[in-house]
């Protein structure tokens, strides 16, 4: 974001649409957890496989770290979702989103030989939808749109 990129109307519109769609997804995932009093990430964390599974299982096995993980996950999803949809503090939202998705991906990498209790709705080999969403966010980071369409327009008025 060193300089404002010049987009055609169509390019800008589609970048905003992509940003809003991903934001919607984050926001709903966050609200699903918030509205379910029984929700906890413990099952998901314990289901972890791959080279970081020990790390995720350690979080799950300690009630305090689990509570922190649950809180950050739930409110993180909501904050990122709102950030992306409204175009508000979008850079922070995108970086947080990428971090969160990296955790999801690395806790359940679709690598050869790893099996999960969690059902998937499709078939994946190394690449799954989490990874694609993650890289879509990377693209959105490199092609910012929130200072043209979004609340960042007002937040960063002086600079633009």
């Amino acid at each position, binding site marked *: 974001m060193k300089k404002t990129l010049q987009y055609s109307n169509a390019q800008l519109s589609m970048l905003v649409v992509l940003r*809003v769609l991903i934001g919607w997804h984050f926001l709903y995932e966050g609200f699903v957890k918030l509205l379910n*009093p*029984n929700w*906890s990430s*413990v*099952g998901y964390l*314990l289901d972890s496989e791959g080279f970081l599974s020990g790390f995720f299982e350690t979080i799950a*096995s300690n009630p305090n770290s689990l509570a922190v993980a649950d809180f950050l996950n739930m409110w993180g999803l909501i904050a990122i979702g709102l950030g992306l949809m409204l175009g508000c503090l979008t850079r922070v939202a995108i970086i947080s989103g990428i971090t969160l998705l990296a955790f999801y991906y690395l806790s359940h990498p679709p690598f050869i030989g790893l099996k999960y209790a969690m059902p998937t709705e499709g078939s994946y080999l190394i690449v799954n939808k989490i990874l694609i969403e993650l890289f879509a966010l990377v693209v959105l980071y490199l092609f910012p749109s929130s200072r*043209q369409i979004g609340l960042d327009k007002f937040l960063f008025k002086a600079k633009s």
Partner: protein
Amino acid sequence: MSENIENKNIQKNEDTKKLNRREVLKGLATLPVVGAFFYSLYKKKQYDSFLKSSLLEEIKISGEAPVMPKTTANSKQIRLGLIGFGIRGPQLARSAGFAHPEYIESLQKSAMENSNDKRYSNYLEQEDLNVVVNGICDVFDVHAENAQKAAANINREGKSGKLASFPKRYKTYKELLKADDIDAVIIASPDHWHGPMTIDAANAGKHVYCEKPLTWTVPETYEVVRAVKENNIVFQLGHQGRQTESYFKAKEAIENDFLGKVSLIEVTTNRNDPNGAWVYPIHPDANPSTIDWQQFIGQAPQHEFSLERFFRWRCWWDYSTGLSGDLLTHEYDAMNQILNLGIPQTAVSSGGIYYFKDGRTVPDVLHTVFEYPEKDLTMMYSATLASNKRRGRVIMGHDAYMELGSTMNIYADSGSDRYRDKIEKGIIDTNLPIYSFVPGRKDVDAVTSPTEQYFAGRGLLYTYRGGKRVNTTHLHIKDWLECIRENRQPSCNIDEAFDEAITAHMGTIAFKENRKVFWDADKQQII
């Protein structure tokens, strides 16, 4: 001219305003989508609560497992004697608070190696039941010494810990029963000793916790009941399933008639390893000089000294009740607890020794079918010791069926009359549970996400919530001790035990004699 300029300025201002308005609109362009999101969320929530309330109209379960009060420090201390300290004996002792130092050491070690292994801290947190072990008895010297060490490990420490003084080792259980400093005994002997030991203990005025099955033969079953009742002792049979939370929920669901008319119950045993087939390890120090063979034999047929028979006694009818007594009884007792089945009218059995051809006389594959014509239902038990295929435990009704384990799920039946309307309207999906119980979860929820279902099924949910697992055997022993203190009847009392023993014997006789066996309820006899 000036007017012109003014006009121009106005025009310019309006342009700027327009521009600003346009800019503001661009800044807020996505706001309507956020609005649409929250409207959709509201609609979704409304739909979910409609589904939930429609289901809850049908299904109302509130009951929890009874909460047992904590043992108070000033409650009367109960003085125990331990009879039999092979495999189950040490487990029962641990549940009462007495673990062998080597066992504690092994828990400490695995907790260090794997921080997810909470067994050590859970064990330290296990409630102190205010009991003491004053006497032990086992016919094998090594087991007897293990019992003494476990009983003396009152601080639940490892090998370097400080032990209290050893309880007295009695050479025979009869001598132990004479001791004045013992109020109650825990019996974990082979099956052929359960009856005689319980009778003698009751006659000596000791309260009894006895492992299942109640008896080895039919005649001694009546004797045990008489002795327990005449001496007015508190008797608990070792079916710890009585404390399983999901069974309480299951009972309530049945009582509320969620399943409709139940006509078939299917219970199973599925094992596939030597340990599960009773091929237990033989201790290197075991020999005729360390084992009191004659005392082991007792009322069983005479046989020359045999390490296999001593350690793997469950494989021979001479000491065992086979699958019926060892595993069918757990399944039966669970169903008797939930459905108040009582003793069946008839039993037929079939099976054989199909995999473990190691000289055993009891079958490794067994099926027993019990008929309850008065209740219009059949209970089918099917067991194999040579396949781990999980077949579960299912109660089948006209309107719904229940799958029961540590979790409990009720599925509507596609042919149900009661739920037909809701199935047709799409409120009930017969592929998803209409009711699901997961222990440890706070509220009852009829609608759960598919992911949650998966985790629940694999036992991955809530296990570590608060870091606690509840040991049902501990609760079962506690139930017994509290009943002794308050002179009440425990959950698996002598009447329940009688039903269990007779039912298991009917299955065994049907198998051994290859015939249909009947229960004459008036004469209280198997014919």
